[in-house]
């Protein structure tokens, strides 16, 4: 049993580290984890699910704005990008955040093609992140089910 827990913990740690190393997450995610305590045991999951909901909504907004046949309202797109940037920054979704910064520049430059490309990438990235994090949460659940404790992962 202990061996399983230890193995799972190991796996969890490695996986988390890989997420950081691959640039999916940054320190802000660590911050987020710190905020999770006994009073709010599912804080990270709550925030992230909120984030993903937000993502879906914002990406939808952006896609609609960019899908206009006539003139595209870049400021509207920009507002959504800004929101997404703020959110991703807050949760530590590093890749999404990075994309948002580029996206915003394209918006400000009224570069339609750049915007569309960014939108597609953001969609891919956020979905990838969603999958990865889902895996991570699953691992956590397994650890807890195995009677272990989710280890604190130090990234440095």
């Amino acid at each position, binding site marked *: 049993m202990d061996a399983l827990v*230890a193995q799972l*913990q190991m796996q969890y740690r490695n996986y988390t580290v890989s997420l950081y190393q691959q640039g999916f997450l940054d320190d802000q995610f660590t911050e987020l984890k710190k905020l999770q305590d006994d009073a709010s045991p599912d804080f990270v999951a709550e925030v992230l699910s909120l984030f993903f909901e937000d993502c879906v909504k914002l990406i939808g907004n952006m896609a609609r704005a960019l899908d206009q046949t006539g003139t595209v309202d870049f400021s509207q797109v920009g507002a959504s990008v*800004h929101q997404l940037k703020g959110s991703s920054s807050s*949760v530590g979704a590093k890749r999404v955040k990075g994309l948002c910064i580029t996206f915003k520049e394209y918006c400000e430059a009224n570069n339609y093609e750049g915007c569309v490309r960014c939108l597609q990438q953001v969609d891919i990235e956020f979905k990838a992140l969603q999958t990865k994090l889902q895996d991570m949460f699953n691992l956590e659940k397994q650890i807890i089910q195995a009677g272990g404790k989710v*280890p*604190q992962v130090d990234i440095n």
Partner: protein
Amino acid sequence: MVCEMETDQIEEMDVEGLSSMWPEDVGTQADNQFNVGDSDTLKEVDIAEKHTMADLTRLPELMNTTDQGSSQLTNLVRQWEYMQDHAVRLLREELKILTRQREEAEAKELKIIEEHNFESQEPENVPVLDETSHLFRRFRQKKRDELVDRERVVIDEEFDTVAYWKQKALSLEKMLEASTERERRLIEKLNESLKTMESHSAPVEELTQNLKRAEGFLHFILQNAPIVMGHQDKDLRYLFIYNKFPSLREQDILGKTDVEIFHGGGVKESEDFKREVLEKGKASKREITFETELFGSKTFLIYVEPVYNKAKEKIGINYMGMEVTDQVRKREKMAKLREDNAVRKAMESELTKTIHITEETMRAKQMLATMSHEIRSPLSGVVGMAEILSTTKLDKEQRQLLNVMISSGDLVLQLINDILDLSKVESGVMKLEATKFRPREVVKHVLQTAAASLKKDLTLEGNIADEVPILVVGDVLRIRQILTNLISNAIKFTHRGKVGIKLQVISQPSFANEEQKETSVWICCDVYDTGIGIPENALPCLFKKYMQASADHARKYGGTGLGLAICKQLVELMGGQLTVTSQVNAGSTFTFILPYKVATSDDHSDDQDEFSDMVDHHQPEPDDTTEGYFQFKPLLGSIYSNGGSVTGNNFLPHKAMLTTPLKLTNGFVSDPSSNTGQSETVQVENGGYMDESRQNCCPESAHQYGNGNGRCSSKESESCSSSQASSEMESELTVSSPREEEKTETEVKETSQPKILLVEDNKINIMVAKSMMKQLGYTMDIANNGVEAINAVKDSSYDLVLMDVCMPVMDGLKATRLIRSYEESGNWEAAIEAGVDIKTSENDQACVPPTNRLPIVAMTANTLAESSEECYANGMDSFISKPVTLQKLKQCLQQYLQ
């Protein structure tokens, strides 16, 4: 009459209008001799004989004894000899002709005799000139042939008849007669020739004639020439003078020296010059200006040559003077004109250069000022951020680096402020304020401020003479700036002993202008120290910009090198003077003298405003206004305070003590453009406020950092080992330990639950921030945009607002501006104008004007340099960069909620 005509003519001829060398009116007044002499001169010209005004008896003597004289005589003799030779030659030729004629006659005679066989046995006639006898014979031979051919007597009678002989005798007789006649005539001619020869042989008379002619010519030329000539003997006594000054008689001159004759300038010089020539034996020329009573100011070009006798011994000098007064005057005039011209040209070019330089300088200064301003804005952001950064969790090395960064930043900021100050003074933009202030208080506060940051064992003292007025009028801000500058300078270069300020009234200094003389009292302020002193050679460049006493000092003590230059400029701007005396290793004293107007002491309003921020309203100190001596001694080791104040006054209220002087100085300097006392006060207040809050939280926060650091490192090491060992137990430990500590901290703070407003539109951000706040033990209200924030601020009083910058509806910057406007005006009109729907209810209690400035901290996702300045400009107090972390939030709360 003739004389007049003559002079007229000469004057007309004289193109330059040359006047006579001697004044024209002298002669008539002196004596008749001159007039007589003048008319004589004319006569002499006509008859080529002159009555010279010379010692005639001496002249031949001179001629006989001198070289020149003898050579002239020799010339004359030679000429005479030549003439005699010529005469002799002429006579000889004539003689030759005569001789020939006689020969002819003789030849004829001979022929006749031969023809008639009148053989004469007498010997041949011996020619007159023996030496030519054989020549003569030859001639005779020749002539004889010719004569026979030519003059053969033609007789038409038959030869050897009586008639024939008769006829022949007759013709021969005739020929003889003719011959005799010819002979007689020749003798006559010869006699005549002899006579003329006799008359030619009188040379003396001829010489005299020649001499007279030469003399006449010379006189003719010289009589009107502006020339005086003379001969002086070895002792420089005149033996001969020509064209002397008219009023002098010959006996006045001859036998005397120049010095004996004339008096005045130039006489001695000419005498010396003559003597020099005499000694050197070399002729030379010199221009000498005479300034004598006799003929006034005249310049002579004097030529002097030595005179030798036949034995080549010097016997005197010949001297010739030509009056060149007018020429000299003209020449000098020309030279002066030329000089003036050159000077003017030089000045012109200098002026254009100066103008050019000035323009360049102004442009450069303008650019410098603009640049400085441009640099200052972002730099203050950098320094501000660095200061905020210094309050965060840092390890030792980071903290050191940061300290360097802050101090460098401060230095650059100071430099830029100085440059701005300086360019303001120089461009004349800086205006002086006339405010009432108490000099004693100013001195005290400057010392207090200095004492608060004193890190050396120095005694600071202030000494104000009794006669210094209690209240004066002047630009107190500038005066404080000068004092602060000088004091900090003094402290910088003083390592032990004391630094002090002495004030005393002095009498009006010499440099005071009219305006200052009216109502001023002059106060002399000495800022003295017992420091390293300034070497004398460094004093001149002390007040120059960017200069320090030496490069060594600059390296050792740092500083911009602008401080003293600014002080000097400020003092001079105020009509005073800044000086320095110093002794190496003994100390320096900077003294500035300034005029002040004396204010009546019953009006205190101005100056209380001025310093209310400094003295802290808490209690009036009656001694303060008249106290003349202060002393501050820092107690090293404790927080630097003025515990040792001799007077026992509580000079350094706690609040003032904690205020860092650097900040205050900056507060003063940072914005010199706001010249009104009001805004300046606000400025200082702000500075004080910010520093105070920062300072106040400092010891505590430091303590907490200590904790934090300790905790952090332990956590790190543990988590590190845990990750390596992957031990369950250890990981449990790491999870729990920091939490507990934080909770204890939180509990302490919860006692005074401050009200916080978070203005943020992003739900996730809100969630995160809220969670963090919860962890730190705070709760907070949420507003989703600027408008909501304004309404929230209106409805309840918050201790802190965390404001997102970029928000829909109304962004954080605008909201902050409107809140600040409300704080200043007490109403929300600006906000209403801006279109905010203020939900006002007239009886709302929140309508009372705010009492305190609400700390507003921006949360910005933009890069730091970009928007920090914008945040400050819009009235925000500080900012947190996004994403917000627990640590940042904690520091922010610590800073603003203590």
